[in-house]
């Protein structure tokens, strides 16, 4: 694993992100990662809050378009997150909290599919099943966890 991290960090793009002093390298990628977080976690918070019962008159079916934003944000952050990781792979790759973050993201993505299936289905404006409410509550906690672990990575190096 260590040799993989070293290879990754040795790539010219990783080296550029880590060492370039302009605001167009590391700072801009970090900014895009924050916007991606706002898109992904932001719309997921809204969808899940509605599913657990907040803002009840709002038709759940009207929130279908939000999943497009969720996935756009997710892809943006998968790319920018990989670049940020590559720049400091030998440090971040040895942090247990980084793997906690990746695991939480995996759970968040696994939960996103059945939630999307429900919201885009014909029954989404009917009664919300307890199973869906439970998954929405879990997804809220998971994305709060992703943000928290992600933030702590910056301070544990």
């Amino acid at each position, binding site marked *: 694993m260590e040799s993989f991290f070293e290879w990754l960090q040795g790539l010219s793009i990783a080296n550029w992100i880590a060492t370039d002093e302009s605001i167009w390298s590391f*700072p801009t990628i970090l900014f895009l990662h924050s*916007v991606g977080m706002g*898109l992904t*976690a932001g719309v997921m918070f809204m969808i899940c809050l509605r599913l657990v019962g907040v803002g009840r008159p709002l038709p759940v079916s009207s929130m279908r378009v939000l999943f497009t934003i969720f996935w756009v944000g997710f892809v943006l952050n998968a790319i920018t997150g990989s670049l940020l990781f590559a720049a400091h792979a030998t440090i971040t790759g040895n942090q247990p909290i980084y793997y906690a973050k990746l695991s939480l993201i995996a759970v968040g993505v696994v939960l996103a599919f059945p939630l999307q299936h429900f919201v885009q289905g014909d029954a989404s404006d009917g009664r919300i099943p307890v199973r869906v409410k439970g998954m929405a509550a879990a997804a809220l906690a998971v994305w709060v966890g992703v943000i928290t672990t*992600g*933030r702590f990575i910056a301070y544990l190096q």
Partner: protein
Amino acid sequence: MNFVHLHLLLNHVPTVGTIVALGLLLLAFAKKSDDLTRGSFALFFAIALVSLPTYMTGYSAEAVVKERPGVNLELINEHQSSALLALVFMEATGVVAWFGLWQARKPTGRSRWAAPSVLLLSVITIALMANVATIGGEITHPEIVSQGQPSASIGALAPAALRSAAIRYYQFHHPNAWPTLEALHFIGLSLLFGVVLVGNLRILGFMRTAPYVDIHRLLPWGVWGFVINSVTGMLFFVGQAFQYIDNPAFHLKVLFMLLAGANVLYLTMFDDVWALGTGDQAPLSAKLVAASQIFLWVGVIYFGRMLPYIGGAF
């Protein structure tokens, strides 16, 4: 004009402004006018926003004034901690006033607790602001100090726990304090940004099967995000003011935040978005406001993220 001039200009807003807004609220009670009540709520909300840079520019004034001979540093500390206490009450007044505006839109009618709560909070705020102004005036006007004794406030109105030094000590005394504040700041960001997206995307023409009345129900969650981020953001600032006051990214972040914050009133109380029913298209003017909202909040994120790189913050 520099930030010291700005402090001397802005400090009239939370002092004189709250008295004007309170007068308007009392007039609303006398006339039993819902319109005047809403007007005073909007004014309290705007004053609460402007109070944030009023407090922050105080640190720029401190940096200049404390170099001068004969300036009483203890008086500056008293002014600063009493100002933070008054700011807390000012922001609470602004948040409760916003909830009053939001509730006035509810089909069940306006809330009965909002106006009395704003009245009580604003009276406390005015008393605290008067105390702040009294101490602040004496910092550079020794001629108004009677018998050589500064009328420094009684300790309770300038609690030592609200001094920058005390908050800075807490931030570094516990190794997880700063990262925890950062995590909360990003959770608040996501909550606020989610509501900003949903509300403004509806106006732009997405999610059109939802009437705006239903979107309006979600607005308090955005305000909770804003409250979380004001509190955590002010804790960063109070503890580490000198890495922000001369930081151009910070100046732009605050400017964008004030513009975006004022914009929130548009989503809360304006009729042209409130009237959007199922399937309705918003007028072009509303779409321009909605697009500017999203742009301004992305700008807040940009300049927030650039604090360490354009300026020298950590």
